[in-house]
Structures are given as C-alpha cells and as structure tokens.
C-alpha cells in the first residue's frame, strides 16, 4: 500500500539570506499513523510543516516531492491544492490568537471551511461547526461561536483552531506546536483532546514540537530534525530507550537526566 504522505528530498532555501533551512528531508506517513517531529528551535520544524501544504512565505524556495494521496502537492495547480487544504489535509498552528481573524466571529471562521469547499450551505455549516466546537470541549458552544477571538481564552482559541481543522474529517492533521502557547494544565487538556480525536477519526497525525514529553505521549513514531535533516526515525519506545544520533541522545537526556546517568 502506498503511504498517505511521502516526502522525498525536500529542500527549502532562503535565497535572500543565502542559507538552507531544510536540506533533503525524507519521511513517510501511513494512514492513521501518529508521527512526531522533534526539533530544537531553528531546526526547521515549522518550515517543514508549512512546506508540506505549500504555505511557505514567498521569501522561501522549496524543491523536492511532497506526495499526498497520490498527488505531488508541490506541482499541483492552485485550485487543486486548495481542494486538498482544509479538506484532506488540515493544519493547526502554534499561536491561536494571531492564527484567528480578529474581525470575524469564531463560529463563522470554523463554518467557512465547509462553505468554502462547497460541502454545506451556510446554515448547515454553522450547525456542524457549533456541534464540533461542543465536542472539542467548549462550554456553551452556541454562545462561544458568536464571540470574537479576543473574547476567548487561549485554550478555547486552540479548540476553535482544532475544530476548524477537523470539520471536514481530514485524512492527515498537521499540528505545529499546538500547545506551546498554552499554560501547562490547558496544554494537557488540548493534547488529550488531540489524541481522542485522532483515535476516534482514525486520521494520521503529524505533530511538530520541541517538547519530547508532548510527542512521546501522543505519537507512535518519532523523527528527530536537526540542521535541516531527519537524523533519526524510530518507534517512540525505541528512540527513548536507545537514541542513536548524538543530537537525539542529547534531547532524550534532557528529559530523563537522572535515569540515563544511573
């Protein structure tokens, strides 16, 4: 069976600054699989997440293949790419306040995914948006949907972003540091929600984070991104027990210093 997502030799350069951010990334992901991408800041993990859906800022140049459900997203025409984004492959971003349009009520922002893809009419889209907002743990979703992003708490905003991504039941969810901007208790709740939804829908999850703890509790397989390359690719228990690459070892050590020193 072909993998759901297959990335081959993905390079991303910043020509203006004369440096490379990704230097030949290879990765594959099967349907329903949960994969974590671990990297320190500056390792290129956000760039990798954005490059998959062709969302890089114009200053960055990408080359390589990003095959998703049999199409190369890098060469797909814009209309076909738009049909994939949000419907087959959705994304959750790091900073939930700035990632939401400050001038639009959050319910409308969620419902827009369905109307823009021509799935539902406006009224039905709004109903399913409010329903989903409720299932992501928002109390009184009908009222919350009428609010603007700044009238919600950080955790509520991240739930809104998640609902936006899940509305059309994507085959793959890319989550770029979805919990880094939240405080610890909310972080745990949102991760729990993410795991529940992934299991319930059987969708594939590509979770990008600098936090090994977050990844280890959510993903069956971990990739370590370092210097623009994947330096380690192993099932989670194996990576935690015996990291091979020195950088991976260093990262694992930061989580369990006492254990490993013993």
């Amino acid at each position, binding site marked *: 069976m072909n993998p759901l997502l297959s990335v081959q030799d993905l390079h991303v350069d910043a020509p203006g600054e004369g440096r490379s951010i990704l230097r030949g990334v290879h990765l594959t992901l099967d349907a329903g699989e949960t994969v974590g991408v671990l990297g320190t800041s500056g390792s290129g993990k956000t760039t990798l997440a*954005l490059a998959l859906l062709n*969302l890089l800022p114009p200053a960055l140049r990408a080359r390589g293949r990003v095959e998703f459900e049999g199409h190369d997203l890098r060469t797909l025409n814009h209309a076909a790419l*738009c049909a994939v984004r949000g419907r087959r492959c959705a994304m959750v971003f790091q900073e939930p306040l*700035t*990632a939401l349009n400050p001038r639009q009520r959050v319910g409308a922002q969620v419902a827009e*995914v369905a109307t*823009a893809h021509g799935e539902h009419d406006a009224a039905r889209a709004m109903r399913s948006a409010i329903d989903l907002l409720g299932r992501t743990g928002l109390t009184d979703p009908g009222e919350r949907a009428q609010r603007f992003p*700044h009238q919600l708490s950080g955790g509520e905003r991240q739930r809104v972003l998640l609902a936006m991504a899940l509305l059309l039941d994507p085959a793959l969810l890319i989550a770029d540091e979805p919990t880094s901007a939240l405080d610890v208790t909310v972080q745990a709740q949102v991760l729990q929600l993410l795991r529940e939804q992934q299991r319930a829908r059987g969708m594939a999850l590509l979770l990008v984070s600098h936090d090994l703890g977050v990844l280890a509790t959510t993903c069956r397989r971990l990739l370590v991104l370092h210097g623009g390359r994947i330096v380690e690719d192993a099932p989670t228990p194996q990576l935690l027990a015996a990291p091979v690459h020195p950088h991976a070892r260093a990262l694992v050590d930061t989580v369990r210093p006492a254990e490993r020193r013993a």
Partner: protein
Amino acid sequence: MTRRIVVRLLQAAAVLAVVATAVFVLLQFAPGDPFAAALDGTNVPPSVRMEWRARYGFDLPPAERFVRWIGALAHGELGYAASRHRPVADVVADAVPRTLLLVGVALALGFAAGILVGLVQARHHRRWPDRLLGALTLGGVAMPEFLLGLLAMTWLGARWRLFPVAGIASLGDTATWPAWERALDLLWHLALPAVVLAVGVAARVARHQRAALLGVLGEDYIRTARAKGLGEWRVLWHHALPNAIGPVLALLGLALPSLIGGAVLIERIFGWPGMGLTLFDALLARDYPLVLAAVLLATVVAVVARALTDVVAESVAPRRARIP
C-alpha cells in the same frame, strides 16, 4: 463616548469661529465691494453711491460690520448676494445640493475604484498588474485635476462628443421632460466632472489600500485562511480586507475637504453651478457676503467630516484596544 462627542463639538465650534474671523479680516484687505463695478464709474453721483452702500451697511466701519455679521449669522441670516440679486441663503440652497452630488459621486467612485485597484495590486504583488497599476496610480496622484479636466473635456467632450463639455442640463425645454430622462441627462452631464474628481481620490485610496493589504497579508490568520483551502480572492476579500480597510476609511475625512477644494476648479472648468463655481464668481464680483458664506460652509463640511471620521474609526476598531 458622550464626553468625546462634546469635546469634538466644542473643537468644531472653535475652528468655525477662527475661520469666520480670519476670512472676514482677510476680506477687509481685498479691494472694492459688491457695488464697485456698478457704481464706481465717473458718471454716478456720489450721493447715489453713498445711498446704496448705506442700504447694505457697507459704509460702516469693519468692526461694526463684523459684529452685525456675526449677530445675523447667529440668527441664521447670511445676508444679501448683490451679484445675484437674491438672498445668500437662496443662492446657497440652490448650489449646495449640486456640489454634494458631484463630490458625493466622486467620493463613492474614487473609493470603490481605489479599493478595487488596491486589491488587484495586493493579489498580484510584484507582478506586472501591480507594477502597471502602481505606475498609473502614481500618475493619478501627480496629475493636477484641472489638466485632467481640460484633457477630458477636449477629447471626450469636444473631439469625440461623447459627453457634454459643460453645464448641468441640456439646452432647451428640459423642464417638460419626464423625470427619468431629466435624471439621465443630469448623470450624463455629471459624468466627466465626477470622474475627473474621482481619479485623484482613487489613486490615493489605491496606494493606501495596497500598502494596508500587504501589511495584513503577512499575518498568521491569513496563513490559517490559506490552510483552510480558501482561494486567494476569498482570502483577500474575507480575511485581509476587513482588517485593512480601517486606515483607508480614515482617508474619507481627509479627502472630503481637499475634494471640495478640487471641486472649485472642476466646477469652474465644467460650468457646474455648485458651491465652487458660486464662490469663484462671488470673488470676481466682489460679493463678499456670498464669499463669506461659501467659505464658512466649506469649513463646516470639513470639520463635520473630520469629526465623523474619528467617531467611525473608533467604532470600527474598538477591539484592537481590548486585546490583552
């Protein structure tokens, strides 16, 4: 909010008082009066001149005339326009709606076209449509209105005869025409002066709109909108424009006073009998009560526009201030 409005009104009143005084004082340095042309010939007896000036109060010392004028203004009296042989209020009542129509249509056209051009430029940032429209808007900003007016009149009016070169209605017995035909005739006469005035507005609006949109397009929520699978136009229209329209709407209040200034020239060129042409003719005829009224009216419009813009700007963007 109430306090703000009260403060705004007081400021407006102060501006009006200063402008009224300044214009009155300045006109004291201008030569002649409304009767200079008619009465100051050699064969008019001095007693006749004295009598006419006394009748309209032009023989009084300036300070007393100022006090009388302000007193009359307070009662809503604008005086008598000797050059028109009618009360100033009547002249103004005829002219103001025509100028409002001209300026209103020019503003609406200018803003609609400018916002649209800004959207197209932002959509095709740094590609040829952006560069071409950028050059055109720069030309539009630099082009003096009177030159554009004369060019339009020469080519579209005189050479190709697509539009009338001047006036507000066709010659002949238009009063007997059906209403829709008269309205069409009015629009036909309005087209050239309104479009010429709108060009400058559109060019300024487009440059501001483009810059505002480009600033917003780098925001995270634009990336979110694209990740949702929205097309570029939908991203621009639903997500970028609502967040980038504020500074452009603030231009409205700034554009209106300068548009009224431009309307003086355009009304003169196209013979559009509005306030601008009235002011121009009143100056030539030394009809100072009419000049004073026209300038005061323009000031009122400018001050009110400014105040309204501030109120609108505040009600459009209160959320920004409340973001934690």
